[in-house]
């Protein structure tokens, strides 16, 4: 390890950084004797970059040489950028030394395509295998599968990785082929299928033999770039909803397009990455995963794009005044979840607390309900406020969008409130 590695690290981190998946969650694995490290149930962000995004993993490319020419990618063949390649031993040492200092939860490894997909995939597999078997590294590993890699290699990779991902990048096949001529949907879906098959098979085997090897225990994820093609939020979210129907798909990430190759006329001219839109997509994604929303309730042919002015839950509520106001002392959980300003954890707290007493607005505030928003959509003990029924949706919208807008968040893993997480300890 020497100063030369610093240069390589710089090049290969800059090449890897546009992949936004940041979480390291989904695997819990205690320490085992003779091995290095453990995996925490949900990811720990060890640092935050100045763009505000979570740094949990050493997100790095094995090489940024690439024979493909995807228009949206900084590493495309036709770009004149500095190229570098790590040796397996350099990569392993960096990962382990960073890990031992508590800088990271593990490794997120990807690669440009060199020679052919299988050759590249084989090198990736060799690196993670080395880390796991020779160096007994027990921390988190996320491996990006190479589009077009053979099922055998995907199967092997899954034995060492906690999570694998194949990025779809563009939500519409025609747009994808326009921007990435060497790729099509099938080259992405087929490794996704291999990962899923591996998981199902391993689950089956583990039912029979407890010690059968685990296969990507944290499942798979994918990413879509937002704003590099003319596709609507409906295209994006429908694809997400379809992905989430697969049991192995844990997360879909959305990456506001950063115009890295401004010269390419196939790409839109953007001065700024579409951060608000990206944020709205993450919010919609949360509605799909945690709030019992169907995709057609969020976007449909009449509203193909998310409202940039208000969040998608509020947008839905404003379109459906007939569902409100909701009585917080009586309404079922599913209805509480639909109230703007009321999250999963406050809905659960309301269910628990209303068994003891009838709740009023001061209780709700203390529980963490954003009353500024919620007040137009609920009734509680003191019935007084004017709700969406009396005010009409357009006025509620006007009131709630007055003043300044909140900046977009990064959509990274939030730490959910969990009461059962901690064993009792006496100091």
């Amino acid at each position: 390890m020497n100063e030369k590695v610093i240069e390589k690290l710089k090049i290969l981190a800059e090449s890897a950084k546009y992949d936004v998946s940041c979480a390291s969650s989904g695997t819990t694995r205690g320490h085992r004797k003779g091995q290095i490290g453990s995996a925490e149930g949900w990811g720990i962000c060890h640092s935050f970059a100045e763009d505000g995004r979570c740094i949990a993993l050493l997100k790095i490319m094995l090489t940024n040489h690439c024979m493909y020419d995807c228009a949206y990618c900084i590493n495309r063949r036709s770009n004149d950028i500095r190229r570098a390649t790590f040796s397996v031993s350099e990569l392993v040492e960096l990962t382990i030394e960073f890990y031992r200092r508590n800088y990271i939860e593990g490794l997120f490894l990807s690669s440009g395509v060199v020679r052919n997909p299988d050759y590249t995939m084989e090198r990736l597999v060799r690196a993670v295998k080395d880390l796991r078997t020779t160096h007994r590294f027990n921390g988190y590993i996320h491996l990006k599968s190479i589009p077009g890699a053979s099922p055998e290699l995907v199967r092997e990779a899954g034995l060492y990785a906690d999570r694998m991902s194949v990025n779809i990048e563009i939500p519409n096949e025609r747009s994808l082929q326009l921007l990435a001529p060497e790729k099509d949907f099938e080259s992405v879906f087929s490794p996704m299928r291999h990962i899923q098959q591996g998981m199902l098979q391993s689950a089956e085997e583990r039912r029979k033999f407890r010690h059968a090897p685990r296969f990507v225990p944290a499942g798979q994820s994918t990413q879509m770039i937002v704003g590099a093609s003319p596709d609507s939020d409906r295209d994006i979210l429908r694809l997400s909803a379809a992905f989430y129907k697969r049991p192995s798909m844990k997360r879909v990430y959305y990456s506001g397009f950063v115009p890295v190759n401004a010269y390419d006329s196939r790409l839109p001219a953007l001065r700024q990455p579409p951060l608000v839109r990206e944020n709205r997509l993450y919010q919609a994604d949360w509605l799909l995963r945690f709030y019992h929303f169907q995709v057609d309730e969020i976007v449909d042919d009449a509203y193909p794009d998310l409202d940039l002015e208000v969040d998608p839950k509020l947008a839905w509520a404003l379109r459906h005044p007939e569902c409100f106001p909701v009585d917080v002392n009586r309404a079922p959980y599913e209805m509480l979840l639909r109230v703007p300003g009321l999250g999963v954890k406050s809905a659960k707290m309301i269910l628990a607390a209303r068994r003891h007493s009838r709740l009023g607005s001061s209780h709700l505030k203390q529980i963490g309900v954003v009353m500024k928003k919620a007040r137009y959509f609920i009734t509680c003990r003191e019935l007084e406020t004017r709700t969406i029924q009396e005010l009409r949706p357009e006025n509620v919208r006007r009131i709630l969008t007055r003043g300044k807008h909140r900046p977009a968040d990064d959509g990274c893993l939030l730490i959910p409130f969990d009461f059962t997480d901690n064993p009792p300890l006496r100091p």
Partner: protein
Amino acid sequence: MTVFRYDKTFEGLLSALFDVYRLKRFPDALLGPGEPPPLFHDGVIEVGTTRERADRAWRGLERKLSPSALACLTYGWLSELPHVDLLLLRYMKKAIDAPSSIELDFGDPVVLEVSNIWKKVNSERHKAMQFLRFQKAADGTYFAAMRPLYNVLSLIVPHLRDRFADQRWLVYDVKREYGYYHDLSSVAEVRFEEKEKHLLSGFLGDDLMAKDEKLFQQLWKTYFNSTCIRERLNPRLHRQNMPARFWKYLPEKR
């Protein structure tokens, strides 16, 4: 006005709970050793801390509260917030007197406040796990210093012990002047009479550092800067996620 005086330990607080039932009186104020009593009071009751009383009080609580509610009490204690002891005593008495569990009655201000303090302490515990950074010493020990807002060091030991089981390490709270040392087989609380430079500053001097330590700090800093997307700079979010009070001990922010 009823006033209790106790030794300001958690065991002492549990002993005070024992006395609440023994004497059938509830204090309006809790004093520590040497603290002057308020002007109008009906005599100060001195609480005798004993293992046995504390254990009996704790067992009583165990019958009424779930493990996570018991953890709330511990976390509350470690918050070291002013008057948290009286709040916890109220909570404990309520729990024991109530016919059914009170822990989810968030309409009750005492329950809600204990739960809110739990949230704060738990978030600090999480931050301690996030932002702790080890420096490797020449003798192979990994050293980390921090200054958490609440006294959370003991709460992260189980995590560190699991994750860094094959490393010798010392984590040290510079503010409270104690730490935990892991010698590959067990963890012990440590305090130092003589404070060497790194225990005061939180940083290993060049003489104590492992040969590669500087290089890896530099590599980490390089990575930190390279992985940032300049087009998306967001200093507000950056600070919100990683409060400036932690920066001092982060190699990437120095």
